[in-house]
C-alpha cells in the first residue's frame, strides 16, 4: 500500500508544477502574450547571468541590463529599453517564454474541459445503457459504434468549414472542447456500461431492490461508485490525448486564432524547415508537452497499479 502511494508523488508533483505555471502565467511571464518587440524578431534566448552580485541579462541589442525581481506584479524583468527573452522571440518579436505559459492555459484547459465533457457524457450514457438494458442500450451502443466509425478528423474539417472564417478565440475554444469532448464519449461509455452491467447483478443491488429501492437510488448509491476507478483511469488517459488533439488542431489552424497563443498554433510557426533549423527555440511547446504527457501517463500507471493491488 505504502509503496503504491509513493508512486503517485512524482507524476502529481510534475503535473502540479505545470498547472501552477500556466495558472500563474500572469505573474511568471515577463511580457504579455501579444506584446510585440518589432526590433527583435527571431531573437535567440537571452543570456542570463544569475551568479553575479547583480544578476543581469544580455539584450539582443548587445547591452546588459540588470534583472529586477518582483516589479510591476511580475516575477522578473529588465528596465526598458532592455528586454529579456528566456526562450527567444517569434517572427513578430513576441516572447516565446511568455507565450508558452499563456498558451499552456489554452492547451491544458482544453484537455481538462474536453475530458470532463467526455467523461460526464460517457458515464451518464454508459450507466443508462448498462443499467436499463433493452432499447436504450441498443440505441446508445450502436450510436457509439457509429461515432467510432466516423472519420472524425474530416468531420471536424467539415464542421469548421460550415462556420464563419473568423471566429473569436473564446468561440474557437468552446468549439474545440465541444468537438473533442463530444466525439470522445464512446470509449468511456463502453467501459462504464460494462462495469454497470456487472455491478447491477451484485447481491447488494438485489438486496436494496428488495427493500423497495428505485433505480435513481440504486444508481446513485450502489452502481455509480463502482465506476469511479474506471472513470478516474480514463481521465488520466483522455486528458493527455485531448491535449495532443488540441495541439494538432491548432497546428492546422482549426483551434484558437492569433494573437491568442496555444501550443498548437505556436508550433504552426515552426512548420517551415528553415525555422526549425535556424530558430530551434520555437519548438519549445513541443518539448514542454513531453514531460506533461509523461506526468499523466505515470499517473495512469500508478492508478492502475493501485487497482490491481486492492
Amino acid at each position: 500500500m505504502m509503496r503504491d502511494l509513493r508512486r503517485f508523488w512524482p507524476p502529481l508533483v510534475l503535473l502540479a508544477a505545470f498547472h501552477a505555471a500556466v495558472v500563474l502565467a500572469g505573474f511568471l511571464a515577463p511580457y504579455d502574450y501579444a506584446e510585440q518587440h518589432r526590433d527583435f524578431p527571431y531573437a535567440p534566448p537571452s543570456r542570463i547571468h544569475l551568479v553575479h552580485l547583480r544578476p543581469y541579462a544580455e539584450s539582443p541589442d548587445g547591452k546588459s541590463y540588470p534583472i529586477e525581481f518582483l516589479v510591476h506584479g511580475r516575477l522578473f524583468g529588465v528596465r526598458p529599453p532592455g528586454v529579456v527573452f528566456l526562450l527567444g522571440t517569434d517572427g513578430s518579436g513576441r516572447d516565446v517564454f511568455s507565450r508558452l505559459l499563456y498558451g499552456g492555459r489554452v492547451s491544458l484547459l482544453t484537455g481538462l474541459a474536453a475530458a470532463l465533457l467526455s467523461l460526464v457524457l460517457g458515464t451518464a450514457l454508459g450507466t443508462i445503457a448498462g443499467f436499463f438494458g433493452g432499447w436504450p442500450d441498443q440505441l446508445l451502443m450502436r450510436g457509439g459504434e457509429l461515432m467510432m466509425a466516423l472519420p472524425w478528423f474530416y468531420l471536424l474539417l467539415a464542421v469548421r468549414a460550415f462556420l464563419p472564417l473568423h471566429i473569436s478565440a473564446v468561440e474557437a475554444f468552446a468549439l474545440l472542447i465541444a468537438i473533442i469532448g463530444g466525439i470522445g464519449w464512446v470509449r468511456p461509455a463502453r467501459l462504464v456500461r460494462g462495469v454497470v452491467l456487472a455491478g447491477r447483478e451484485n447481491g447488494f443491488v438485489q438486496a436494496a431492490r428488495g427493500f423497495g429501492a428505485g433505480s435513481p437510488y440504486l444508481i446513485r448509491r450502489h452502481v455509480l461508485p463502482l465506476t469511479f476507478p474506471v472513470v478516474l483511469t480514463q481521465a488520466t488517459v483522455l486528458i493527455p490525448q485531448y491535449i495532443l488533439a488540441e495541439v494538432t488542431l491548432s497546428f492546422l489552424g482549426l483551434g484558437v486564432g492569433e494573437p491568442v497563443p496555444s501550443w498548437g498554433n505556436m508550433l504552426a510557426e515552426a512548420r517551415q524547415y528553415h525555422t526549425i533549423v535556424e530558430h530551434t527555440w520555437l519548438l519549445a511547446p513541443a518539448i514542454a508537452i513531453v514531460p506533461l504527457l509523461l506526468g499523466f501517463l505515470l499517473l495512469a500507471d500508478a492508478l492502475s497499479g493501485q487497482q490491481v493491488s486492492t
Partner: protein
Amino acid sequence: MVPEPLLSVRNAGKIYARRHWLGHGRETTALEGISFDLARGRTLALVGPSGAGKSTLARLIAGFEAPTTGEICIEGRRVAGLQPQVQLVFQEPAASLNPRFTAAEIVCEPLVIQKRGGRGSRARLAAAAMEKVGLPGAELDRHALEFSGGERQRLALARALVLEPRLLILDESFVGLDLSAQAQAVHLLLDLQERLGLTYILISHDLALAGQLADEIAVIESGRIVEHAPAREVFAHPQHPRTRELLEAALALAPGGLPV
C-alpha cells in the same frame, strides 16, 4: 376458533414465458399448485434439490414477483408487491452487503430507502437491530469487509430486522458458513423467534439443517410440494422417494445422528 394463519398460499403457480418476437415463445413452469398455511411463530423449511423452485417461491412470497396463478395472502391480505412485514435474507449474505458501506449504512439502508425517520432515529434503530443479533453497537463504523463470515450474516439479519418484519425468509442463508458459525446462527434465529415472535421460512437443500430449525418441512421437487409434514414426521416416516434420498444424504453427512 382456528387463528388466522400468518401466511396462506393457495394454488400458487409461476410460469416464465420467454416471448419471441415472431410469435411462439417457450414456457417454463417453475411452480405449480403450491398450497400451504403457516401459523405465526412457526418455522417452515422448504427443502429440495437445486432448481426445484424453492427460491422462486421465496420471491413470490416476498412480493418480488407476482404468481401466474393462485394467490398468496399475508394476514389475510393479498400480496401485491414488496412489503416491509416480509423480509428476505439473501443467499450468501457476504455478497448482499456493499463492501463500500459501513455497518451503520448497511443496517440503516432499508430505513433510508423507505424514507422512515430522521438521522437520529435511524441510528437508534440500527443500534437496536445490531443489539438484537448480538453485534455490539460500537462496530457500526466498521466496513462490511472487516467483519467475519458469521458476523456478516448477522449484519444481513440486522438489516432485515430493522423494518420489523413478521415473516423472515432465509434463502440459503447459511451457505458458506463453517459449522460453528452455522450453529451460532441457528441458536440466534431460535432466540430471535422466541423474543420477537417471528415466523420463518427456511430455504435449504440441507435436510439436517432444516431439522434443527423447522417445525414443519415441505419437500419441493420440480415445482411441486411432494411432501409436507411436521419435521419429526418427515424424519421418522419419510413418504416420498425424494425425501428419503435427501434424508439419506443428510445422514451420510452427520454420522452422529440427526439432532431431532
